[in-house]
């Protein structure tokens, strides 16, 4: 594995370098015993990784498991992991398991901070992007204490770091999706490093490494707070898309107000609709044609407002929707012992059992239904 890593190192380095210019991410961690790793895999719209970078690090995933160890998670880390689960659709535990953090030498860390941030940003970003396999970020951190000067320029610095940091214990950085650092953080995170790690160079302690932004406080508390705030602002953005008429609204308080109004109006609508439904149905029995037409609506895109679709769809679609509904009904019944369920499903079956909708439908059906299907179209189309 190591040999392979070294072989790929140059390639990766070059590719990574190329991508530095594009990427605006912070660097990630470096894997132990690996020359250089970058974390492939953009996770979503937030990441702008080039595809070639992705291709170059296909092996990363295999590297991670051996070096995994317990993760001493920061609160911010947990929050971010939870946030990533939104992006990745999933497995926070897998993500946590795959992220390998380790502590680098403090000096090296500070020097890494000094270097240009773009490469690091890229690595860290890729790491965040990586759902289950993020872990080794290429870079640095501690890699090169000696190359502090060279690190001024991102590209160069990256190369140097790669050379140096190859043997360093990896430090996993979980970064925010929002680009963390501009560049050379003056004291990127010396405070955090101090608090989190000992000054043990090859210590494989895990911790979460967050980049401080330029000109921002690097207190561990404020960093965690910033993580939290960014999470909240992200949720707010989602909610802004969801709640109608909130695109121009800015600010948390006003957004909250809109959300509250929307939720209240939706709840009131539910009440109102249930009142309406109870008014027309004295016995709470929804006729089967309602169900069938509803399933028709389901098969269409969204709820169609006119049942005039019926003639267009023809009877075949009706069959399909009936069968779908039936299947849904049958498979989802968890408690077969429930007699009532049986009755309900049997009712459904009997009503839907007539696959054809023959004109000579019996009056056992609700009388209006076959009128609906056969001749209703004419009237409805008017």
């Amino acid at each position: 594995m190591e040999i392979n890593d070294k072989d790929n190192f140059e390639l990766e380095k070059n590719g990574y370098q190329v991508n530095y210019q594009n990427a605006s991410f912070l660097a990630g961690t470096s894997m132990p015993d690996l020359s250089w790793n970058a974390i492939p895999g953009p996770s979503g719209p937030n990441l702008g990784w080039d595809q070639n970078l992705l291709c170059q690090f296909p092996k990363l995933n295999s590297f991670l498991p051996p070096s995994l160890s317990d993760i001493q998670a920061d609160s911010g880390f947990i929050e971010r992991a939870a946030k990533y689960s939104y992006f990745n659709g999933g497995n926070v535990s897998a993500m946590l398991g795959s992220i390998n953090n380790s502590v680098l030498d403090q000096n090296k860390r500070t020097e890494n901070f000094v270097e240009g941030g773009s490469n690091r940003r890229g690595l860290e970003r890729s790491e965040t992007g990586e759902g289950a396999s993020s872990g080794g970020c290429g870079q640095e951190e501690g890699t090169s204490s000696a190359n502090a000067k060279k690190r001024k320029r991102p590209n160069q610095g990256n190369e140097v770091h790669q050379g140096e940091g190859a043997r360093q214990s990896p430090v996993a950085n979980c970064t925010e999706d929002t680009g963390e650092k501009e560049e050379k953080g003056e004291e990127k995170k010396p405070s955090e490093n101090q608090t989190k790690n000992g000054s043990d160079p090859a210590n494989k302690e895990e911790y979460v490494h967050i980049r401080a932004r330029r000109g921002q406080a690097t207190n561990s508390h404020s960093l965690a707070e910033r993580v939290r705030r960014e999470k909240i602002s992200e949720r707010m953005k989602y909610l802004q898309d969801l709640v109608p008429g909130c695109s121009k609204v800015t600010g948390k308080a006003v957004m909250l107000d809109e959300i509250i109004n929307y939720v209240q109006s939706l709840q009131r609508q539910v009440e109102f609709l249930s009142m309406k439904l109870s008014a027309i149905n004295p016995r709470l029995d929804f006729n089967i044609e309602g169900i069938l037409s509803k399933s028709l609506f389901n098969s269409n895109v969204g709820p169609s407002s006119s049942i005039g679709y019926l003639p267009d769809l023809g009877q075949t679609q009706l069959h399909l929707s009936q069968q779908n509904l039936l299947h849904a009904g049958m498979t989802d019944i968890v408690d077969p012992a429930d007699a009532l369920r049986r009755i309900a499903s049997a009712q459904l079956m009997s009503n839907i059992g007539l696959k054809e909708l023959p004109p000579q439908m019996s009056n056992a059906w609700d009388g209006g239904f076959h009128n609906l299907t056969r001749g209703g179209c004419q009237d409805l189309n008017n």
Partner: protein
Amino acid sequence: MHATKEFNKKAFLKQFLLGLHVSNSVTNSISIQQRKNSIKLSADLAMALARGRTHWTHALITKLGQKEENKTTLQGILGRRYEILMARYSCPLLYQKVQRSKKSVRSYRFSYAANRRRSALKGSCVRVPPSVVARNLEHRRTKVLKRLVPGGELLNGSSLLSEALDYVISLKSQVDMMKSLWRATQVSSSSRNVELIPSAPLQRKEASCTSK
């Protein structure tokens, strides 16, 4: 992004109708209020069951189950699951008021009192710095949101927002489903009352007229 309810419409509908059947058989409700309540109960339960396992669904089901009048209906609908759910989520601590951190309360009160004192000295109206105003507004609205979202009392910050997001999505799809169901019943009832086919036999026409 977040899971949408796009794929759960069938599940919702099925659950809803099932719930209605059960509530219909269980209760002989005459008044519109009771019928409305049972419909609403079925709808909410269907929404929660169709959504799956999230914090607010459990909270909603538990809340529904705690009311006395719903218990029989719930038992009929959920069957064996009812006991399991109730046992798991009926912990009384769940819905007690969350203990506010004394520190935050104290600091909040302190800042507000300081402002009042300051303004009293100056003899002008209460001058609250905009940051405090924003914080107050946000705090108040977060409280309201917590009350609105089922199970929101226990959540904080971003988790509250994510639960609210999920809840809004589910509510919206629930409303859409009920609207289309309403429209379907409307259409069907109207079609029944209309003479659609001239060649329809007389008996059918009579049957349709008498049915509604």
